[in-house]
């Protein structure tokens, strides 16, 4: 036997069958790659616009043996791959009919006690079973079923778009985060991604000339580096898909702003022109959810020119991406075999670049890559030297209350947060990249900012009365003692203060933050009392920025 794997638990059998069924809906022919770490199944639709991939880890199977060296028949599927750690992996790939495979593994009337997949392409295997995937089942009713599925051994072309995206993602968001404190869960996720990239066997494709998967980017960020990241509970998407008339809706658009995520289903099509008239069935459905409901988000945005007012810019950041519903629906429906809802992770770059979805469930990784509409794409300016003028801003999702790591976190009474939302908002938008006003949770980042806010204390009260945000480009703020070069990216800005003062030692920093926070609480309370008095006769705290917003736009 060159390959033998068995799946004995009913739940896993269902997952296996359902995943195959999902893939077969994208293309009846799937590519199966067997590695020593598990099985990869991928399918790409006929027009190359959608690719779905499922990775079953070795642990998914009750039993797993793979000995590629014994393969004699059908050796055209044998491939040898070295990863960046110079470890040689031998993998075996073939093409098989997934319709048929899923048929053989979907739930049947009697429970299957043993479900075994074997390939016997050794030198002593008989010709009749060479190049056949043998599926053997033993059912509870003592029937023994054995199916032979023909396959075509062929070398697989691994599409490593997900690795590329993750690398890009890390290089944009991770390396700069040392001086800042991000949501610890996001940081953890960065770390796990890093290890994932380093240990993936196909990571040669993303490695540099020294065979190192580098996620550190030294050059300034440009438009080309754009990548946005979203992660939230898949039930949000599921609910949306279930609620729309999926027979009419053809496309989905995700619109992400700093405060909301809008999922828009629409169709451009003109149906039944003769009978029902023009554009009778053009439909748009929008679900909007607050950014608070998202686990993480990272928005990449570029500032076109320094003259634009940062407040309006930061408010008008809107990332949107459009893709087709059909295959996406198939993919989501395929997840029904799991009872739990997990986080769906979405990476997308500019419109026109593929969008990547990833869900990890019980070690099984499901990936979907879809092409997107090019509408709204920003092309890179011709003179790339002037890229320096571009100041990419990266917005990272606010830290959630249920953050895993608590020590540096202090709870504020809820009621107080509700009382002074405006104060907080004005503070955040000033300069700390991406701090959301919904983010009432205290983190070092904000405290730092507030300390800084104290330094130029004249701006803080102002912000309450209407000059809602301190401009991020410090050229207009001479009072800030920051080196100008740091201000190219707002991301770096918060970090540099800390690195100047206490270095990058996080724990120390957090302590500082904590102390600062306590001071700040006190100060804020006093200050906000004052503000309240001021504003009581004027506009309410939430109204203050509204005229400004209109004015700006």
């Amino acid at each position, binding site marked *: 036997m060159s390959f033998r794997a068995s799946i004995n638990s009913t739940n896993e059998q269902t997952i296996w069958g359902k995943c195959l069924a999902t893939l077969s809906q994208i293309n009846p022919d799937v590519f199966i790659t067997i590695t020593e770490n598990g099985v990869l199944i991928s399918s790409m639709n006929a027009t190359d616009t959608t690719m779905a991939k499922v990775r079953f880890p070795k642990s998914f199977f009750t039993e797993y043996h793979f000995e590629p060296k014994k393969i004699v028949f059908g050796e055209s599927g044998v491939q040898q791959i070295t990863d960046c750690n110079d470890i040689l992996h031998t993998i075996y790939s073939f093409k098989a009919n997934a319709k048929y495979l899923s048929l053989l593994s979907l739930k049947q009337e009697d429970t299957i006690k043993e479900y075994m997949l074997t390939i016997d392409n050794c030198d*002593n295997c008989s010709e009749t079973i060479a190049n056949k995937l043998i599926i053997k089942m033993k059912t509870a009713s003592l029937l023994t079923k054995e199916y032979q599925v023909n396959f075509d051994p062929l070398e697989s072309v691994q599409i490593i778009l997900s690795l590329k995206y993750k690398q890009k993602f890390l290089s944009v968001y991770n390396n700069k985060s040392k001086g800042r404190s991000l949501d610890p869960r996001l940081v953890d996720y960065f770390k796990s991604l890093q290890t994932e990239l380093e240990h993936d066997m196909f990571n040669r494709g993303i490695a540099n000339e020294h065979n190192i998967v580098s996620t550190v980017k030294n050059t300034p960020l440009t438009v080309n580096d754009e990548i946005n990241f979203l992660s939230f509970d898949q039930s949000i998407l599921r609910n949306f898909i279930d609620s729309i008339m999926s027979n009419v809706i053809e496309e989905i658009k995700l619109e992400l702003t700093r405060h909301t995520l809008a999922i828009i289903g629409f169709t451009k099509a003109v149906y039944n022109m003769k009978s029902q008239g023009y554009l009778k069935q053009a439909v748009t459905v929008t679900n909007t959810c607050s950014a608070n409901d998202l686990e993480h988000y990272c928005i990449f945005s570029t500032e076109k020119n320094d003259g634009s007012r940062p407040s309006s810019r930061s408010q008008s950041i809107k990332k949107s991406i459009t893709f087709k519903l059909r295959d996406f629906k198939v993919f989501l429906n395929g997840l029904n075999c799991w009872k739990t809802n997990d986080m769906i992770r979405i990476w997308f770059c500019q419109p026109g670049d593929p969008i990547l979805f990833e869900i990890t469930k019980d070690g099984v990784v499901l990936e979907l890559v879809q092409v997107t509409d090019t509408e709204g794409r920003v092309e890179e300016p011709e003179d790339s030297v002037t890229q320096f003028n571009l100041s990419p801003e990266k917005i990272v999702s606010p830290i959630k209350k249920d953050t895993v790591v608590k020590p540096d976190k202090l709870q504020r009474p809820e009621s107080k947060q509700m009382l002074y939302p405006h104060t907080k908002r004005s503070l955040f938008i000033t300069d700390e990249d991406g701090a959301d006003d919904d983010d009432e949770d205290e983190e070092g980042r904000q405290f730092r900012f507030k300390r800084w806010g104290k330094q130029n204390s004249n701006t803080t009260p102002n912000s309450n009365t209407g000059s809602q945000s301190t401009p991020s480009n410090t050229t207009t703020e001479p009072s800030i003692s920051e080196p100008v070069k740091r201000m190219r990216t707002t991301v770096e800005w918060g970090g540099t203060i800390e690195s100047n003062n206490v270095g990058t030692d996080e724990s120390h920093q957090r302590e500082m933050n904590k102390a600062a926070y306590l001071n700040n609480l006190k100060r804020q309370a006093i200050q906000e009392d004052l503000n309240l008095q001021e504003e009581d006769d004027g506009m309410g705290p939430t109204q203050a920025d509204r005229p400004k917003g209109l004015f700006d736009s």
Partner: protein
Amino acid sequence: MIDSPIFYATTVHLDHIVTALNCLTPFGVKGEMLITIDKNGLSFAQENNHVIKIQLVLSRELFQTFHYSPITETSLTKVSLRLDHVLDSLNISNDRNDIIECTLTYNGDGSPFILIFEDNMITESVEYSTYLLKDLDNTGLVLDRTRLQFECIIKGDVLHNALHDLKEIGCKDCYFYAIHNETTKKPLFALISRSQQGLSKIILPNERSILEKFEIYANDSTTLLYDHPMISVFDYGMLDKIRASARIASKIMIRRDVHGLMTVNILNETKDILRPNDQEYKRTRAISGNNLPSHYPGIIIEICMLEKALPELPDVNEIKVMMIEYMGSESRHNFLPNTQQPPKKTAHDDKEEENSDGYEAASQDLPLFF
């Protein structure tokens, strides 16, 4: 109905009749079925292309009243009806919740066959014209009981399961493979399917509780033959016609004679109809109580079908190889034929193969011993 007709019978078990007649539907609903009336009951028969024939018997115990007074004592009355017509009228009445009494009457050649449905409000009467009497030609479809090759009795649901699986995988040709191992006395009965995707096999359990009887004869119905596989091939389209009957079967007897005729006898014990049709059926059953008469033997079906062709030699070899490999990997049954048997060479080769297959496992175990 002043003069009592030659035949009349009354029953309330409409659902049971519907269940029974549904077994005939794979043989073509548009075709004429031949109803034979004798003093023991009704028999319904249908055939396709002179290669497959079904005969279904509803015994007289099913009917509360059963009257048959032929002109001569032994004569049979035959009448042709269209299956879909009968089923349509039965189904309409069967959908109602009330207990419906159904009377079947027929007054010999030239008179219509009449179904009368009565509940406490309505009496409905359906007349079927019976112009045509198409007798069935049984030539070649009669089992030669003295020259049997293979005989087995198996539980109905197991065979149905297997047939259902074959259907799902798009089986084209179905091979029956049966072998009796001399040393272990263990039988092996497998259905092997050849489809677009390759060969598949379903090995039926050989436990006594499921495979009640299993014998392979040396062409004379008496001498038992061991270690010699019986392979016969059927067109799956044909074999699939059994499926509807197997669905309601409790026991199925399969016999095959030397002429390549296989008969499938199906006994449906009324106590345990294994697969009630659906929710609908259950409901009707619950309401009418399904109190089938206690001495009613159940639906009896006999299907005779001819082999597609004699299996070709390469196919046979392929199947043999496949089965022996299976047996090899299944070491606890130890199915390997003795080496002095005719397929000596193959068996030997496969033994080697089996050894090499088991080699991995053995080498893994080795360190334990050292």
